[in-house]
């Protein structure tokens, strides 16, 4: 009985609120403020303080860097209606095209390219006067080196070793490669190799941990020159590096007489040299290793030396040098 009385009361109150008659006492509507910017503002304007002001804009490249002759996309935060009012894009030095007007099919963007490397400036200007600029580095393949060095070759390596090469851009850029257009990927190729050899060239050998501007040259199974080329994809600007696989041609002293060591092995030789007094000049025998093919420049790195008793054995920490012991 008590439950029925409460339900009836609640129903009556709800009914009265729906009717909401003035006589019952409903609250008035809030007042509508007068317009701040009478007549509204243009598509490139906004109204922050009851006056129309030109939009502040941002512009930037879609990528952190680009390469010569590859298309570069620039974007902004300009709303589409404004873009259609005639937003102007310009370049310095001049790109191709040198200027353009906003398009809104993929946002208010601009696409251009440059035929030379360097730092380029792109400016976007709104009809009402605001503008924004951004710089972007446009590079191409300048030289090929052994990675981690500035050695442009010839590089000397031992047979069946490998070497990682790197294409250096000019101007240099520290842009993360993942933010460089895929069009800028480097094209690697082996231009020449010794007859009968079967080398391998693996671009981007440690992807994704490595940059695609590197390539590993391996399986240098014949002595001789391997010429590797790296080219910019869009413009074809390229450089080559020569990697020379060498063999030990001889290991001969500058004094002494060869004697028959009896093993009939051409790789082993014995020489006798008479003792001299300490004040004799020279008082050492110089044993020289001669590679084949010969070095064309004196770039052999210092080899580590391990001397044990009267046996000298020298091991290299790197594969790219002749190891002398």
């Amino acid at each position, binding site marked *: 009985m008590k439950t029925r009385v409460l339900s009836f009361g609640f129903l009556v109150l709800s009914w009265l609120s729906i009717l909401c008659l003035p006589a019952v006492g409903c609250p008035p509507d809030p007042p509508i403020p007068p317009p701040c910017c009478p007549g509204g503002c243009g598509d490139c304007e906004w109204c922050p303080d009851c006056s129309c002001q030109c939009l502040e804009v941002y512009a930037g490249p879609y990528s952190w860097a680009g390469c010569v002759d590859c298309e570069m996309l620039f974007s902004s935060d300009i709303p589409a209606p404004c873009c259609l009012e005639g937003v102007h894009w310009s370049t310095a030095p001049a790109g191709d095209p040198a200027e353009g007007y906003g398009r809104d099919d993929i946002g208010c963007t601009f696409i251009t390219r440059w035929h030379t490397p360097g730092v380029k400036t792109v400016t976007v200007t709104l009809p009402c006067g605001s503008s924004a600029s951004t710089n972007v580095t446009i590079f191409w393949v300048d030289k090929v080196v052994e990675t981690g060095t500035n050695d442009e070759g010839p590089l000397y390596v031992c047979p069946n070793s490998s070497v990682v090469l790197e294409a250096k851009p000019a101007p240099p850029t520290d842009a993360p490669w993942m933010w460089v257009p895929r069009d800028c990927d480097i094209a690697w190729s082996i231009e020449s190799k010794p007859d009968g050899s079967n080398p391998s060239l693996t671009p981007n050998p440690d992807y994704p941990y490595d940059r695609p501007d590197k390539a590993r040259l391996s399986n240098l199974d014949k002595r001789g020159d391997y010429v590797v080329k790296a080219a910019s994809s869009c413009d074809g600007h390229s450089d080559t590096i020569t990697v020379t696989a060498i063999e030990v041609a001889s*290991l001969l002293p500058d004094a002494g007489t060869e004697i028959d*060591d009896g093993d009939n092995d051409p790789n082993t030789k014995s020489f006798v040299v008479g003792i001299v007094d300490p004040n004799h000049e020279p008082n050492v025998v*110089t044993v020289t290793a001669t590679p084949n093919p010969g070095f064309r420049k004196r770039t052999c790195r210092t080899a580590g030396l391990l001397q044990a008793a009267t046996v000298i054995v020298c091991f290299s920490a790197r*594969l790219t040098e002749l190891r002398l012991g």
Partner: protein
Amino acid sequence: MLFRTVDRTTTGVTTITCTCGSSWKTTKIYVYEAKLELHADEGEWWPPGNFWGHSWWVLSIDGASAILIALNPDPDIRGLMDYLGTAGWWPKEEPKLWGSYPGFVMMGDQNHIPTGSEDWRILFNSLISALQYVKALDTSGGIWSAWSNNCTDQAVLVGEAAGVETIDADDNPTLPSELSDWLNAH
């Protein structure tokens, strides 16, 4: 170019290996000291027993390099090891002053005390040549003669085989005293 140096002031063997991938070379450098010594005991008239005197030689090489002879692939060279050391030219029987006898090379100095001595560093090949001369002298059935082919003659000729010129061995007789004097004077 890559190079290593080997000390030439001490004897020994140094092995140098140069490797580049599957390509390699190994070179052994033997710094040797080969020597010729000539000794002469001029003899004495009194007391009797050393009337003749004696001349002899020593052909030697340091131990590390002696292996080049001992383990030489040529058996004829290996056989020269028997003649390394002190040796002289002797008759096979008690000689008379004017007699001729089959001769042989006897190792050792037979307790002679030199009155003149000299030594020279010689080339390895000169050592081999001298040893070959000594071996041929020992095995060729040569005749010992106090007048024309005595111990001093052969000591001088062994020296010449090693590239060392001393006195003229064509003198007859060539006396130990003559060699002793020369050795003391040079």
